[in-house]
């Protein structure tokens, strides 16, 4: 009986190890979302044109060197404040193709109304 119990324990352990290996392999196989750095400065986004692929998960990483800015991509209901000294991130997977306008939605100065860009999803 003692032997059987040990054998079952060993078998379970081996099985668990095998499963965790599979999980690890699966995790390793998933592509890491592409990071896209965007600087929001007076009064432009750099880059002002962002290219992504339909179904591709990306992480937008924003910084603002001067004053608080906003990023608003209304067609995807995405927005964030961008506070100087902090990195703001937005992760998303575009589910439609086309050209979409994003803009600064925090009034930031005399050039605020020209501060916009385009997201191109191909």
């Amino acid at each position, binding site marked *: 009986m003692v032997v059987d119990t040990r054998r079952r324990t060993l078998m379970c352990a081996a099985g668990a190890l095998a499963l965790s290996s599979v999980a690890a392999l699966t995790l390793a196989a998933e592509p890491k979302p592409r990071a896209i750095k965007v600087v929001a400065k007076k009064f432009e986004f750099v880059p002002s044109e962002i290219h992504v692929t339909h179904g591709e998960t990306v992480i937008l990483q924003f910084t603002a060197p001067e004053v608080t800015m906003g990023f*608003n991509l*209304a067609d995807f209901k995405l927005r964030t404040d961008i506070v100087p000294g902090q990195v703001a991130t937005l992760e998303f997977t575009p589910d439609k193709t086309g050209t979409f*306008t994003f803009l600064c*939605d*925090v*009034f930031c100065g*005399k050039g605020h109304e020209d501060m916009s860009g385009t997201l191109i999803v191909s």
Partner: protein
Amino acid sequence: MSRFDRRQFLQLAGFGGAVWVSGLSAEVCAADAPKATGYDDFYFVQLSDTHWGFEGPPNPDARGTLPKAVAAVNAIPQSPDFIIFTGDLTHTTDDPKERRKRMGEFRDIVSELKVKPVRFIPGEHDASLDNGKAFKEFFGPTNYTFEHKGVHFIVLDNVSDPSARLGDEQLAWLADDLKMQPQDARIVVFAHRPLFDLYPQWDWATRDGAKAVELLMPHPNVTVFYGHIHQEHHQMTGHIAHHSAKSLIFPLPVAGSQPKRTPLPWDPAQPYRGLGFREIEAEPRKAEYVITEVPVQRA
């Protein structure tokens, strides 16, 4: 001159543009009439988005348009009960000294208006860079209420926060004010930005505007007049009508009609096209508002 005579005069003189009637249906009005006695009709003038200090090709007469509008309002045969400017009195500047200079010049020009009182609310160009500080110095509070002939007017400030929020404090103030009104009160709201998501892609929205609309919804007689989008626009959110006014500096395109929200070009063949102000005839008994668009210059 009676209301009808005045409206007829405007049409004949070439002042009157499209007339828009906002309010309840005739059936509802009739049903409501017995308990809605004691109201006097009146009218007021709304001017918006004068952007004093703007210079550029979209308006080669940027320094002449506002004085022309003031003269046009003064020329109306029957004086309005009051006048209101719904924001962006001045064009934005990063220089606080220049901002105050523009506000002082604007105040001097509109002091020529014969009708008093003249009321003001801020736009983001006036208030977003200093949270309304300069505006308050020149024009007083950024949100307030007033009564006129049975109508309760509420002025909301959705621009002093550069993120285009009314904010929890103002929303609580609005809720408290509305609690003091009878459910069937005649309520008119003034704001600069639209309270609903007209076109967020061009920042034509108020981040928490839906909360204000939600607070207003229990009241059946609410109408909103606003500016910001430099063109006439009419939309309902439930039973609440929202009417935007034309600008007095340059018109903007219809939402989404072009890639960017750049001003429509000045047309030398039709100067001041797309610019103007409006007269609003309030008929509180029926909770109805008749809007007449008036161009800067006679056609």
